[in-house]
């Protein structure tokens, strides 16, 4: 009978196989170098073209424009949310006329460009000056800012109504039935059972809509509102300095990325009870 007298001495772990240099890696490095060159070019442009005078003249204007954009989008989204509630309920109602009207509203506002809607409200309604003056509404339609706000509210209400409707309809029937079995009234069941579940579903689309609105809000610059884009166009038309657009890009990207991260945090926080 034979047995092992000495153990095999410990050996180092085998070497990891050398990573082959694939085409993907080469392409990745190429693209990253391209990005780095673009970033370096951007920095060089800012450093070389730095002009204290321009900075002092246009810097505060940019901040003003930023504030205009943020306030415009914030107000539009809030008012749009308010307007979207009746539309969403009309869209879910069994009354065919009501349903049809809400459907038509949503369809029209979602399938025409925001730019055309804005022009229709600002220039189009502006041509009814005498009637509007006699109705006492001219102060509203005279101002590009108000017209921009109105068109944004109408536009985002259509999108938000669809989001809300989809979210409410995504809550399973059993939830309603369960509430009814508990003897809850319809209103209480809606407020305490359906809506909280629906809003969790709607959270992500609402965030997307907010981002889309922020990006879409740049069109008000065309009807002479000095939002971030408007100030950019102003600065460019005065200086012919391409940096104007790059600064705007940085501001917009910063806004959108902030919003995205805030929203991701909110979602993680609000759905923590659903994690397993």
């Amino acid at each position, binding site marked *: 009978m034979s047995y092992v007298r000495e153990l095999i001495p410990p050996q180092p772990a085998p070497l990891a196989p050398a990573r082959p240099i*694939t085409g*993907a*890696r080469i*392409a*990745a*490095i190429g*693209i*990253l170098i391209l*990005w780095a060159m673009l970033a370096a070019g951007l920095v060089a442009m800012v450093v070389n073209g730095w002009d204290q005078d321009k900075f002092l003249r246009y810097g505060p204007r940019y901040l003003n424009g930023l504030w205009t954009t943020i306030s415009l989008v914030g107000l539009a989204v809030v008012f749009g949310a308010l307007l979207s509630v009746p539309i969403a309920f009309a869209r879910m109602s069994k009354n065919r006329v009501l349903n049809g009207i809400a459907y038509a509203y949503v*369809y*029209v506002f979602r*399938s*025409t*460009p*925001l*730019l*055309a*809607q804005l*022009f*229709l409200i600002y*220039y*189009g*309604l*502006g*041509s*009814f000056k005498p009637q509007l003056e006699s109705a006492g509404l001219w102060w509203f339609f005279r101002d590009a800012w108000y017209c921009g706000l109105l068109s944004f509210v109408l536009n985002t209400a259509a999108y938000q109504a669809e989001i809300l409707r989809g979210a409410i309809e995504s809550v399973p029937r059993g939830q309603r039935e369960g509430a009814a079995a508990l003897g809850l009234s319809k209103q209480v069941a809606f407020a305490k059972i359906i809506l909280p579940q629906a809003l969790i579903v709607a959270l992500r689309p609402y965030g997307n809509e907010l*981002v889309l609105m*922020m*990006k*879409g*809000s*740049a*069109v008000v*610059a*065309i009807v002479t509102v000095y939002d971030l*884009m408007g100030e*950019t*166009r102003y600065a*460019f038309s005065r200086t012919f300095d*391409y940096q104007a*657009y*790059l600064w*705007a*890009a940085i501001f*917009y*990207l910063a806004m*959108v*990325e902030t919003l995205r991260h805030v929203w991701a945090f909110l979602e993680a926080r609000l759905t923590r009870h659903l994690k397993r």
Partner: protein
Amino acid sequence: MSGFFSALFGALDPLCGPVGIFSLFGSGTLVACGEAGWGDEIAFGVKVTISLALATVPVGLFLGFLIALAAQSEDKLLRLATGIYTTIFRGLPELLTLFIVYYGLQILIQSVLAWLGYEGRVEINAFLAGMVALAVVFSSYSSEVLLSAFRAIPRGQYEAGDALGLHRGRTMRLIVLPQLIRIALPGLTNLWLILLKDTSYVSVIGLADIVRQTGIAARVSKEAFFFYFIACLLYLILAMISSFGLGFVERWAKRAETAR
């Protein structure tokens, strides 16, 4: 031959042809065709809008496909590179992207030419700039759609391709791509409708699309509400036609699926 085709398309022109809407109902009004009204100018704008959108899609889709392929590669650096691309172009307003491309390309070409010894003003085509900007935006959105479609295709499909002895290109072409198109079509339909609306931005850099042509008509004739209403109506009709057509394509793509 080309004369025949142009005559055929002229006859079938839905706006200003012999049986077009404007020529049937618009004669004597502001939207009459020819010298009397704005019908033919608006019809030209419709053509520009449609051709811009149609020219953008293949470029954007091809770029988006490449980006989706890169975004699902195992290489970390490649994913990083595409992540930067999609983050930038999904975060910028389309209008700003358009301006950056329009003026940026101009400056770029001018500086390259100056470096080569040519000193002169260069103006790039608004159609080209619009196409590039819209294609870049479209590609970054479509890459997300295609990426999620890629993820919906089980690994077993690739393994089956390997088991059949197909090489990677053929697996992609014969097995993955048909399923990919079927899964991605609803998302791409949405993107097409968004693209159709985004083409309105090119009016700002002076391309004669629907919004610009109706805008000129509105300014000259002082009937702003009427003309911008027509613009909205035209976009609405285009959206209706495309959602009808794409619904047809979707049903065609799903013809092999059994009812479950």
